[in-house]
């Protein structure tokens, strides 16, 4: 099984092959002596690469996990070959515009733009209040606000669609 693993934006290939009940691990084509010991079902893992040990913890689902190694957090995306091929087309379509989603639950305090408005990268679009702090949500790229999906004083969940940009 070959996996395309993106760690904090860096892409690597990890290939796992089962042979006579043993698991061979290849990292970017290089064979590693690896042992993976699940400590509990809560994400604590003992990883042994050769004689180096890593007290790792993992959380997340099969496509995206957060891996903690020695205090640092690694944001890992994993795709198998089929998923990788399927997503390749999407990747090529580019990253401009699209949907702006709320990264946290909160309340929309004020909308600072209106539909049809052309905004610059970094321009404040709206103010979202969470944990008693007011946060300016800025435009991730320059573009035009095509649709606003929320209104002032509206409570939004994490991941809620705020506005669409083109």
């Amino acid at each position, binding site marked *: *099984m070959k*996996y395309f*693993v993106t*760690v*904090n*934006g*860096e892409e*690597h290939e*990890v290939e*796992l092959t089962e042979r006579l009940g043993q*698991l061979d*691990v290849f*990292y970017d084509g290089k064979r*590693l002596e*690896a042992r*993976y010991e*699940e400590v509990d079902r*809560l*994400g*604590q*893992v003992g*990883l042994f*690469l050769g004689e*180096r040990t*890593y*007290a*790792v*913890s*993992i*959380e997340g689902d*099969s496509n995206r*996990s*957060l*891996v*903690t*190694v*020695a*205090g*640092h*957090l*690694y*944001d*890992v995306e*994993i795709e198998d070959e089929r998923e990788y091929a399927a997503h390749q087309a999407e990747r090529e379509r580019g990253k401009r515009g699209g949907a702006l989603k709320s*990264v*946290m*639950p*909160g309340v929309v*305090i*004020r909308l600072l733009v209106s539909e049809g408005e052309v905004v610059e990268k970094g321009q*404040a679009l709206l*103010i979202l*209040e*969470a*944990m*008693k*702090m*007011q*946060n*300016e949500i800025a435009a991730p790229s320059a573009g035009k606000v095509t649709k606003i999906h929320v209104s002032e004083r509206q409570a939004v969940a994490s991941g809620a669609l705020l506005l669409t940009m083109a």
Partner: protein
Amino acid sequence: MFKRILIANRGEIALRVMRTAHEMGIETVAVYSDFDARALHARLATFAVPLGGTLPRDSYLSIERLLAAAKRSGAEAIHPGYGFLSENEAFAQAVVDGGLAWIGPPPAAILAMGDKIESRRAMKAASVPVVPGLIDPVADPAAALAAARTIGYPVALKASAGGGGKGIRVVRDPSGMEGAFRTASGEAQAAFGDGRLYLERYLERPRHVEIQVLLDARGNGVHLGERDCSVQRRHQKIVEESPSPVVDAELRERMGAIALQAARAVGYVNAGTVEFLYTAASGSPEVFFLEMNTRLQVEHPITEVLTGIDLVREQIRIAAGEALSFGQADVTWRGHAIEVRINAEDPTNGFLPATGTIHNLRLPGGPWVRIDSGLYRGMEVGLSYDPLLAKLIVWGPDRPAAIARMRRALKELNIGGVRTSAPAALAVLEDARFQQGDFDTHLLETIDFKVRVGDQVQAAAVAAALHRWHEARRRALAGAGGDRNAWLERGRAEALRPASTKGGR
């Protein structure tokens, strides 16, 4: 001495106060909201009284309910912790009026220091140095613009009723005034019910250095040295240390004397902290009074670790009318202490609040490592309360040793289920400027936590791939069992639903 005290707080600080009380042979009464029914502080106290409610205003901010809980439980005194009602003079007064002891400063001192404008006025009158700026609040952006012309840019806009970093904005030129005024005033209005702002000169390359003081009701007062809290973001502290890399014995004495002078000017009794802005921009060190925090500070443990003095113990003794058991000459500082705050927030996403359920927890240990934490497995982290989950405090014989120890401890720490600021703290401790002690309050703004990659990419990638492989194999071995269970669960839930809610959806 008191037989029983009530702790009007939750989380790590409720536990912190409880621990000392129990060591003194004092029984504790915890209070808890519906949300906190399983919380550690409620389980570890001698008694626990429910406040009901889930929102802070119905529970930890309800003076009425807290006083009723104190009466019901027979507590003789109330410790407010930090946050919530700790700096609310109406609560302090109500406690005193109810015949209970308030483990904190007199209500009049809270009031005098609580309003930043009034406190600056009082401090100016007492010849305490303050940052150049306005004493009176301004009403609108136009007035702020006019005032900024005389003070000179950059200026800081601050909520006159503020605290905790809310309602503060820095304006570097006139064009930024309107927007900054609007958000700061809105935030202050929402947080404190008072949208008034004042202006002061914004010091470049400042450091935040504060002095801990302790005063008893008999006129004795000591200072316990400084804490450097310059590693902060939006005025929220992340890493604190003592001694400060920029404070020598002479400056410490000078600041200690000013802090005691400030405290005495308002008739202060009990533990308090005088915050200063430090700058050496003119060549020689200058310190300005910023504000006084009339409560126990989050970062008090580093002072305890350095001096060997239990601040909560002294607070309780002072509230019981006892005299300080030591004088200034008895206070000594040994080695170096660092504290890291573990907040529920995502450093890779602008430190926005994070939520979740703690399902995986590994706390560090070993020599000279102290953890003040309210964490437990299964704990839900929501948005209603302060994001502080735990504090990690280490001691070392000198600053490099303390830094090495904190890095070691942070590498052992593991909190799964909610994003925390711990990786950001580790990045700070690994930063060359921090290690050299050469930084100001803007240090965090200059570290990009988003692009930061540790050097264990290979281990992370291999672990993630193996994790996915094992999960997939487990699912394959379990067959369709998972699906059938879900189908059964749904059927059960449907059968158990009250008849009135059935069908319509």
